[in-house]
């Protein structure tokens, strides 16, 4: 990969991140815009969870990640601490793969 291509990618990535903080950083937005922006990470994080749990390239698969997420969901439901949730998920997936 050429340095020119690499640095272009760096610049584009940074520009995307910086739009919000540079143009609107610290600005108090109207309540309607505020409520809409509050739901943006909600929709994106839910999508990310779905893609990271079920996605394998362009295929949807059920593997060790799905039961791991189910364990995590049960623990979140029971208000377990964050570290317990993530370690239990990793442990579940590792165990299922070791048994497979």
């Amino acid at each position, binding site marked *: *990969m050429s*340095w020119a*291509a*690499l640095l272009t*990618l*760096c610049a*584009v*990535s*940074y520009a*995307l*991140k*910086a*739009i*919000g*903080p540079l*143009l*609107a950083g*610290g*600005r108090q*937005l109207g309540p309607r815009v505020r*409520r*809409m*922006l509050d*739901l*943006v*990470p*909600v*929709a*994106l*994080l*839910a*999508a*990310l*969870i*779905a*893609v*990271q749990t*079920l*996605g394998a390239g362009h295929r*949807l698969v059920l593997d*060790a*990640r799905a039961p*791991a*997420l189910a*364990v*995590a969901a049960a623990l*979140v439901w029971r*208000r377990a*601490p*964050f570290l317990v*949730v*993530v*370690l*239990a998920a*990793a442990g*579940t*997936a*590792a*165990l299922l*793969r070791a048994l497979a």
Partner: protein
Amino acid sequence: MASTVLPTPRRTLRNAAAIGIAVGVYGVSFGVLAVAAGLTPTQACVMSMLTFTGASQFACIGVLAAGGSALAAMGPAVMLAVRNAAYGLSLAPILPGRLRDRALLAQLVIDESTAMARAQDDPAAARLAFLLTGVSVWLCWNVGTLAGALLGGGLGDPRALGLDAMFPAAFLALLAPQLRRPGAPVAAVAGAVIAVAVLPFAPAGVPVIAALAGVVPGVLVARGIRA
């Protein structure tokens, strides 16, 4: 309550460190794969420091490793980075200060720092969670990249440790407290359904961006609740 999940700065620091360590292990595999795809160790490190968007970086070197051109590698990498623009906008209200500070903080806008910030109840806690998570992930990702680029393979597959299952679990734990906002459960379900429906057909990165449309039913339902 979000505060029962993440009540103190100390707990925030601990959680930020945990996320950082998991990301660091992926940083090692990124370093290994980047060098295998033809990048020099310096290029791998510069990419991790300046791009600092894991999914984009893996997509980029994936295309290069498969024999694609640098230009072809940029497409999916940029698509995967577009969601950071949406994160940046939603974080803007908690990122005040001088232009120079905001320009620096912008580099820390990623999945993990956004999720941690948005799981907090008040702006001060959100700012702290954003900063601690962003710095922790940035440090671990870059140390991991350097180690992977220099040492090469032999460090094992993060999947065998179940680390790939750790990220959706962490995002779920951070999403849960946000679901109390009006319309949020609808936005979450709609976002997940859209992403899964689009995944088989769309290029990498597009499913998560398409999930932005899930905000619309969320806003409509929230309006119905208030009306």
